[in-house]
């Protein structure tokens, strides 16, 4: 494994609802916190990649951070916006072009289910008019078929939301910090069969910023550098089953998560067994379950037993979504993928307090998935 790029500063604006605070200003807060964490000044940041889906162009924040003339590139890549910013920052350092830069993601969405921009998703008006342009439908249909094929139970769906709420309750940055019982989850309103209200995450607000530098300069900024071993983004291939698809092929192919995961493991030179803690996209409970297998951490169907055994709990063999995931934090699309990286840095530094994974975790994994069929994976190590 090479140690080319290090994360030396992390900053986050609390996730949730922040009436009266613009998304971009939440981004500014995250940047300031990341700079403080790395003991670096804004004028020493050589480049930035940043983006949001619904809260404006990231580069306008320079008017609040200081007009230093740095190279600032806006990133817009759906649910992989944060992951794409990180991938771009990684390459900017690895190429030798720059030594120190920052990746930023922030967002602020209206309440309720995401309103889908049809044109942006390459869809025609009839699709939305006919009532098919809802991401929640895709998630319900994907897990319904998966339950049919691999024997995942309704009880297991509910227990994933129960775990997320317990982990979120231990995370001061999380939006939802109340534990929900399995029964409360199951008996909440049915939204998109088989998924109930508390099995879904909600659109939210929040921001994350990460300061990155050339690995050999990391000790200038921190005593606990975390190395970015892999950052990969993949789009969908023929035959995969993705959100916002008016038709599918009859033959099933690997989705972008499987492709991104394989590429990331290869890039990092590690395998699924080396991962000590993972943050996996949990737009809803079924996504977490399916993504465990798609990312190579188990066989399809094994999740039923793993979850019953407590494997994915913080104290389990393979802790998943230790900060409460999207379910407890909500999903500000532009920031969501970077939140996962933030949590892994906290875990690898050993700073996660009551939700700290024991045994000095050394290698950590993130996976983000979203519209229109895009996945981003990172692998970090101490």
């Amino acid at each position, binding site marked *: 494994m090479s140690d080319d790029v290090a994360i030396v500063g992390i900053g986050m604006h609390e996730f949730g609802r922040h009436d009266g605070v613009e998304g971009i200003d939440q981004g500014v807060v995250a940047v300031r916190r990341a700079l403080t964490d790395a003991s670096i000044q804004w004028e020493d940041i050589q480049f930035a990649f940043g983006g949001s889906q619904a809260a404006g162009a990231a580069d306008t924040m320079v008017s609040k951070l200081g007009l230093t003339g740095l190279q600032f590139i806006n990133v817009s890549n759906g649910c992989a916006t944060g992951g794409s910013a990180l991938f771009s920052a990684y390459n900017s350092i690895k190429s030798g072009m720059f030594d120190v830069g920052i990746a930023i993601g922030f967002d602020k969405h209206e309440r*309720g*289910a995401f*309103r*889908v921009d*049809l044109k942006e998703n390459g869809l*025609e*008006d*009839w*699709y*939305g*008019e*006919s*009532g*098919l*342009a*809802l991401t929640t*439908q895709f998630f*319900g*249909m*994907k897990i*319904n*078929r998966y339950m*049919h094929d691999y024997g995942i139970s309704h009880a297991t769906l509910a227990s994933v939301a129960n775990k997320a709420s317990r982990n979120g309750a231990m995370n001061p940055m999380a939006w939802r910090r109340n534990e929900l019982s399995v029964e409360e989850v199951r008996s909440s*309103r*049915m*939204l*998109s*069969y*088989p*998924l109930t209200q508390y099995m879904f995450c909600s659109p939210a607000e929040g921001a994350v910023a990460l300061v990155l530098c050339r690995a050999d300069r990391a000790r200038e900024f921190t005593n606990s550098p975390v190395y970015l071993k892999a950052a990969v983004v993949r789009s969908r291939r*023929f035959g995969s089953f993705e959100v916002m*698809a*008016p*038709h*599918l*092929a*009859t033959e099933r192919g690997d989705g972008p998560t499987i492709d991104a995961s394989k590429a990331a493991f290869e890039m990092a030179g590690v395998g699924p067994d080396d991962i000590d803690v993972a943050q996996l996209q949990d737009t809803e409970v079924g996504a977490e379950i399916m993504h465990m297998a798609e990312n190579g951490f188990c066989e399809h169907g094994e999740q039923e037993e793993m979850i019953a055994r407590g494997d994915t709990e913080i104290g389990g063999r393979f802790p998943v979504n230790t900060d409460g995931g999207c379910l407890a934090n909500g999903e500000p699309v532009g920031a969501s993928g970077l939140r996962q990286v933030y949590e892994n840095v906290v875990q690898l530094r050993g700073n996660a307090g009551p939700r700290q994974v024991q045994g000095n975790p050394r290698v950590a994994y993130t996976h983000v998935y979203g519209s229109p069929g895009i996945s981003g994976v990172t692998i970090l190590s101490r």
Partner: protein
Amino acid sequence: MQTIPVAQGLFTGPSGAPQLLASRCTACANHMFPLQAGCSKCGGASTTTVELGRRGTLWTWTVQSYPPKAPPYAGNVDPATFEPYGVGYIEIDGKLLVESRLTIADPDFLDIGMELELVLEPLYVNENGEQVVTFAFAPVSATEKLSQS
């Protein structure tokens, strides 16, 4: 009341027995819905329009239990009178899976593998007083009963 389709080029009709219109790649025979110019499988640039069979089997499904945001949704979103509708992917003739509304919304009556048939469903009445319809799939048994009565 005059009946018009939610969009041109989606299905035949709207009178008579409706059929969905798909693009078939002239190079690799991949089928796509709605009509599109290029092939998602082989990248070929040439497609022809074909009419799909009216029946298919349900590959997966869910139920839209809450009113979608409007826009883009054009149907009834009044929480007091909103009626849930099913949504599923229907495999047609081994050619492709089409995403569609389902006429039933009760999980007890929806099963993966069940046989379904294409129907047209009223969506809304437009400003010209025309009934706008979209496509949906109904259980074959239900449509057979309708045609017999």
